[in-house]
């Protein structure tokens, strides 16, 4: 099954580029990604620019309306994601726990829908 690990964090709680923890934090990310790849569970993974760069759009009555900012204002923002291929939820949770941001914010794990039977 495919699982998506959505990485949430409050910017003020995560290491910033100026901080002392930033170097080890990024190294930990590199190590985690390497591990995911080596174990063959990594499908995809990206980090996102901070939420001030986000644009949200809706189509209403055929018209595109855009708005500045993320969909929902909350302290914790979506900062990146991984997609894993795992046998079950426990395995996905095990890998998600290795994501360095889990120590600072939260990681939401959700199965990716399988539409293969709809064709």
């Amino acid at each position, binding site marked *: 099954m495919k699982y998506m690990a959505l990485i949430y964090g409050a910017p003020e709680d995560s290491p910033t580029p100026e901080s002392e923890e930033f170097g080890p934090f990024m190294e930990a990310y590199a190590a985690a990604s390497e591990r995911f790849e080596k174990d063959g569970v990594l499908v995809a993974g990206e980090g996102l620019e901070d939420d001030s760069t986000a644009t949200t759009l809706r189509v209403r009555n055929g018209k595109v309306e855009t708005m500045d900012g993320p969909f929902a204002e909350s302290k914790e923002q979506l900062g990146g994601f991984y997609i894993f291929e795992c046998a*079950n*939820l426990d395995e996905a949770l095990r890998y998600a726990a290795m994501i360095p941001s889990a120590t600072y914010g939260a990681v939401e794990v959700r199965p990716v829908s399988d539409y*293969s*039977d709809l064709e």
Partner: protein
Amino acid sequence: MTTSVGPEIDALVRRDGGRMLSRLVADIRDFQLAEDSLQDALEAALVHWDRSGLPRSPVGWLLQTARRKAIDRIRRSANFRSKSAELTALIELDRDFEPVIDADPIADERLKLIFTCCHPALAPRISVALTLRSVCGLKTEEIARAFVMSPEAMAQRLVRARHKIAKAGIAYEVPEADGWGERLQSVLAVIYLVFNEGYAASSGELVRGELCDEAIRLGRLVHQLCPGEPEVEGLLALMLLHHARSNTRLGLAGELVTLEGQDRTQWDREMIGEAREILQGALRRGRAGLYQLQAVIAMIHADAPSFAETDWTEIALIYDSLIAVEPNPVFELNRVVALSYAVSAEMALKRLERVGAALESYQPYHAVRADLLVRLGDMTAAGAAFERAIALSGSAAERRFLENKLRAFCGQGCT
């Protein structure tokens, strides 16, 4: 509709319902489908067995029929293609299944099911409800009553939990030893709740022996699975010690008999001996926890020659340790009872007033208070406390018990 086999099927469901459902969930890997298919099979049994008598292996017959019903349901369903792997597996199972030769068609799948229900990705309350429903075969209405919820709300929660298990890919297995930690705690809690639901049923009959037996069986299974885990041993010992007294807990009229009035010569000494051995082994490991401590208290009761000669000071001290590990108003209440015998009823009553706020709507609090007031001779206040306890009683037997006490102690003195 009345048929001659109806009562026999009811008895079968009562005895083996949970085991059959566990087995079916193992085969079908879908809680809802397993439950629906078993229901289909039971309806079929009602018709077929009435016509041609009970089959040689009723459980085997029901399992095989349920599997075929599941195959039918999958074939008819909209997401037929996504289920094709399950369908193939089920058809193969159906081909290999020999109901008559198979002596015990239910290998023990219940532990896997419990671990699945107790997955940390599910809320603890729902874990208990799901276990009671799937493993112990309690009806949704019964569970709803125990949780003080409407049956509709409980049914909805159960559906949501089953949906999550299926969709989130929660594995149907006993995890590797390193994945036990928090899950073992939930598993033990669930087993103890099942035992308690049997020991002091929240509704209907006062005692449901089959649930106690089931809980003890499950406790033994976990014990086999992880020997040397002191809290597992503690829980097993605790359940055995309570169970050893079960045949003295009800009087001739089905009324509750408390520890004080129980005929100690009728306690199951063999079971107590087994519990003692298990508990001693656990305590030697030097990691005392909640279940071990409670088992030690039960052991002191088991060893006391009479209620009056119980070592109440020791019991009060162990409640101190329990409260230190887990602050809990029910432990506080029990400590008050121990202190009332170890020190005095007067001192106990003072302590009781201090924990009162948390237990205002808890029946035993008022019953204990009434008892203490009787011992102190304040019959008017005792009468009022009894009335309050009676109003809060869940079962008829409990109510009768309290009403008898009220009559016995306050017959003349109370206003």
